[in-house]
């Protein structure tokens, strides 16, 4: 990118299953106000506003047009992006590109979903092609169930391993005041939770949350003059995936798949070979427990088939050597349009040292985040504390 870009502010709502106290513009406005306050800025200073959201989840076409006042976009430049679960991260990339272009100095990006206002399961089944698979689509649960059964059959992992991920996420979430599912659960609780689609149980899946996240990105000059703790966006990369071949659940596949292709390109941009050592914290998009284990492998934090050993050894715990999702992750909060942006914002908070009770107990200088959506897509973002890191 032609100019350095920093995150100079951000904010999020308290995420919850029910938010009857606000309509969609009001909910988005909570996050926007929090971001502006964090950046010590007024909306008048913002040059352009980007919204990320998936219109079917609320049953409203062109949410950006309805939410224009809540977003603070009235009279301003702006646009809306819709790339599925990755959209919050795509909005961050888009904001970074706008700043890097030299045309805009301060860009506000927003991701939100008010999932209670639509039928999430039916909408996720609508991801399937209308003529091929939609009539018996298993929504996200069926997909991750096949991933879990494939992972266990291939590598000898047990249901206990997915339960460990479920527990880590919810225990971390208890330290995060904004998280939706703050559950004091044990491995036994996870293993005894209701079976949804073998081997996926209730506690193996993310919730349907309402919430929003907003961030303000700026050029280097603005960032250095206005922010005490700018967090720098060092590299981003996007990899989508073909429509009908869902290889992520085929854990032994030899084909190059989206997650590995994207990580490979991102690491080349950064010139790194050992991501587990290079990055101090990871925020990954794990809609289901098994997906987190596969992220470990696809990001190169361990070898193929070793992901479940990392969780078993506690290496990805908040105080472990490779902390993953200290925020509680998507398993604790999933407001789809915001989820991928929350990964970036939570990583930025870790780098700033502002994550409060879920702050990783070590010096955090570099972070990696992933988004996940569509028929297997990802957007990855690498952040750092200074431009020298």
């Amino acid at each position: 990118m032609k100019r350095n870009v920093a995150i100079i502010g951000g904010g999020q709502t308290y995420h919850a299953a029910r938010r009857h106290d606000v309509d969609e513009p009001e909910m988005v406005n909570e996050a926007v106000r929090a971001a502006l306050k964090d950046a010590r800025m007024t909306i008048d200073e913002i040059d352009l506003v980007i919204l990320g959201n998936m219109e079917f989840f609320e049953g409203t076409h062109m949410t950006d047009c309805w939410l224009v006042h809540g977003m603070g976009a009235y009279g301003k430049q702006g646009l809306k992006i819709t790339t599925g679960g990755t959209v919050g991260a795509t909005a961050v990339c888009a904001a970074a590109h706008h700043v890097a272009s030299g045309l805009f100095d301060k860009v506000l990006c927003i991701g939100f979903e008010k999932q209670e206002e639509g039928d999430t399961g039916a909408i996720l089944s609508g991801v399937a092609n209308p003529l091929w698979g939609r009539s018996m689509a298993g929504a996200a649960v069926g997909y991750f169930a096949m991933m879990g059964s494939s992972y266990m059959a291939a590598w000898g992992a047990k249901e206990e391993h997915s339960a460990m991920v479920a527990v880590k996420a919810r225990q971390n979430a208890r330290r995060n005041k904004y998280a939706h599912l703050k559950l004091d659960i044990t491995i036994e609780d996870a293993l005894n939770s209701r079976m949804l689609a073998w081997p996926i149980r209730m506690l193996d899946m993310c919730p349907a949350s309402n919430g929003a996240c907003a961030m303000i990105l700026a050029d280097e000059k603005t960032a250095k003059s206005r922010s005490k703790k700018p967090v720098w966006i060092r590299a981003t990369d996007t990899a989508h995936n073909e429509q009908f071949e869902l290889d992520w659940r085929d854990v032994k596949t030899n084909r190059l798949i989206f997650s590995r292709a994207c990580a490979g390109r991102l690491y080349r941009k950064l010139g790194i070979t050992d991501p587990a050592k290079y990055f101090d914290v990871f925020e990954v998009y794990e809609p289901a427990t098994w997906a987190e284990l596969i992220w470990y492998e696809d990001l190169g934090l361990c070898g193929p088939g070793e992901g479940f050993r990392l969780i078993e050894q506690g290496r990805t715990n908040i105080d472990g050597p490779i902390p993953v999702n200290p925020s509680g992750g998507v398993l604790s909060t999933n407001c789809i349009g915001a989820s991928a942006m929350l990964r970036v914002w939570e990583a930025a908070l870790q780098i700033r040292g502002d994550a409060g009770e879920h702050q990783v107990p070590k010096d955090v200088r570099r972070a990696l985040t992933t988004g996940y959506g569509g028929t297997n897509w990802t957007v990855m973002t690498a952040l750092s504390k200074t431009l020298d890191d």
Partner: protein
Amino acid sequence: MTERVAIVGVAQTRFAPKRPDVNYGEMAYEVISRVLQDTGLALPDDIDNAISCSHDIWDGQTISDIGITDVIGGHLRAEEKMAMDGSTAVFYGAVGILSGEYSCSLLMAHTKMSQTNRNIVNNVAFDPIYTRMLGFDYTSAAALQARRYMYKYGITREDAARVVVKNLANAKRNPFAWQSGDLTVADVLSSPAVAPPLHKLDIAPDTDGAVALILASEERARKITDKPVWILGIGTCYDAHYLGDRDLSGVFALEKAAARAYAMAGIKNPRRSVDLAEVSDDFSYQELLWLEGLGFCDRGEGGRYTASGATALGGKLPVNPSGGVLSGVPANVAGLNRVAEAVLQLRGEAGDRQVRGANIAVAQGHSGFCGQHQCVVVLGN
């Protein structure tokens, strides 16, 4: 702009009321394969990223860029979808190239209006709590806008009908258009009333189709074509959502978007600098309103300006020589089609609809009812 971004290729489907022979992925493939062939570029190496414009609700698929990922070269690569009118894809594509992240980008917009019900899709764009249950759609909202504009400035139905007569006559020269003809003002006035003052011929018809376009950095563009069309200025702006919050006869968002685009292009007086315009005339009267918003004539003068013949194909500032959206261009595709037509004009490749001596063109698109979000693109050869 310190660096320049060029449009190096365009392709359009032949627009039609209904394309029963293709799904939207196959329809997109028609224009993607053609624009690649025309520019001599190939996937995956020559294209850095892809941007598509469509809406899940029109496509009937959640995250509907899934349906075009294969054909747009998105597999394992960067692909993004914007839920905006296609004109904004040009804005966003140009930003991506100026950022230094990409040097050659493939843009595509598609919609099959025939596969669902326009009124219902439009209705869902109204907020669910306050206005949706009134049963609004874009046409009924446009009728309010038309009435307010006519009342405030003394614009008549005849003034708006002249836009239809001009554009459908122009469309006869455009092989991609499907609605065209030698109409009279009386024909337009006597077409069936839909939402007075809007009658059938005042309203762009339901259409299926797609448009693809390739953007490149200056360095790449020079290698790809000897007829690059440069993006000189871009600007967007949001107006308020609720009709009651807006001055419906006004052009608040368009004026701001245009001012931003003109400033970037260094255009002080668009009346003098601009040779032709392609505007999104979803409804006849909107062409008049948008001419005012773009600064081509004074407020309230759109009717008289058009009646003077200034916007005709041989006029001082030809507007919609292609036939415009009224000749049949799908929702969301409309703005990208405006840009594509302007590019053909600036390359001198517009065939029978060619405007002679065209050097600077303006393309305009809008998203949301009554033009809530506006996008202006200034192009030069």
